[in-house]
């Protein structure tokens, strides 16, 4: 099993929101519109959209990092020109979202949202700051490990994926019911980025590598 089960009682919000009936298997008849996907153009994504440290007048506080990787299909082929969106908390663990009540400072120089299109090799690259861990009210003394949310499209609506990228060696992993909702520990590790000295830029920023592999389109079965 790759994906988390809908009902993961350790993550309380699933209790009333997880569908209780099994999903109906999708049949890929040639007319099924889920086999196609919106195509986003370069004119829609600004050059600064992929640099989350340059979206305001000043630089955000925090540890500057580079996050890069490839969007691939399950055969290892790159998915080109596909939209990748990211969002995250700031270095103090606070989202620039009105609903976030964590008493940590907002950073006027950090919104924490970015997007880009993959290049001809399926590659994306973001410059950002490392997000902080933050508390949530799922259970007593609950803390989310630092993470960056990823939203990826692919070439078919059936491939659409939203996930989260974590940082290697975080001591909060065993206590996080969202990460632990992925039942297979080997699969779970795919959510953890790798520190990469080749991505790291001297005197500038640490580098992390994180590839995202999307499901096959049913037509290929």
């Amino acid at each position, binding site marked *: 099993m790759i994906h988390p*089960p809908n009902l993961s009682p350790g993550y309380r919000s699933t209790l009333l929101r997880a569908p209780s009936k099994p*999903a*109906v298997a999708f049949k890929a008849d040639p007319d099924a519109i889920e086999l196609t996907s*919106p195509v986003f153009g370069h*004119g829609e994504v600004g050059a600064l959209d992929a640099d989350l440290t340059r979206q305001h007048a000043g630089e955000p506080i925090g540890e500057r990092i580079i996050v890069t990787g490839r969007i691939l299909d399950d055969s290892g082929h790159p998915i080109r020109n596909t939209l990748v969106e990211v969002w995250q908390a700031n270095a103090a663990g606070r*989202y620039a979202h009105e609903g976030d009540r964590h008493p940590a400072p907002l950073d006027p120089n950090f*919104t924490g949202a970015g997007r880009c299109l993959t290049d001809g090799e399926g590659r994306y690259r973001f410059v950002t700051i490392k997000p902080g861990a933050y508390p949530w009210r799922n259970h007593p003394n609950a803390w989310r490990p630092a993470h960056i949310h990823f939203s990826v499209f692919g070439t078919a609506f*059936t491939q659409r994926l939203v*996930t989260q990228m974590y940082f290697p060696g975080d001591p909060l992993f065993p206590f996080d019911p969202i990460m632990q909702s992925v039942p297979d520990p080997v699969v779970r590790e795919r959510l953890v980025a790798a520190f990469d000295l080749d991505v790291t830029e001297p005197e500038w920023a640490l580098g992390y590598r994180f590839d995202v592999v999307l499901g096959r389109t049913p037509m290929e079965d």
Partner: protein
Amino acid sequence: MLTPSQTVGPFFGHALPYEGGPDLVPDGYPGAITVTGRVLDGAGEPVPDAMLELWTGEAGTRGVLRRGGEGACGFGRCATAPDGTYRFRTAPPAGPYLALLVFARGLLCAVATRIYLQDGPDPLLDSLEPERRATLIAQRDGGVYRFDVRLQGEGETVFLEF
């Protein structure tokens, strides 16, 4: 080596929605329809922090993040309001249905369904019990189609597994 899914969480509102996202066609577009409804949880309570994506199947459509002008596009995105409602304005699809994805806190994987604009012979609909079939068919009132998403429990919407 597939990457597993994780929840969209509660704090996407400053990042994913964009100007004009729910309007796939401009105001006054000939033949435009409105698709609206509520997202409800297993207790029948509205889900105020869901995000819906609508896809009409216009493959190759460009210009969907930046709206404006007279053209139509095939993709829309709408966050639910505090009362769990959503609303899209779109051109009618070429086929009988619109594809819908729902993301929310508490959904570790997005759920996928279809909004059929009318009942009729269809491979998916015909494979379902009548009570479940009805969950996929929008209720029409003029140019407005009403379609609620019930995530769990009585009247639970049929979801698709890709």
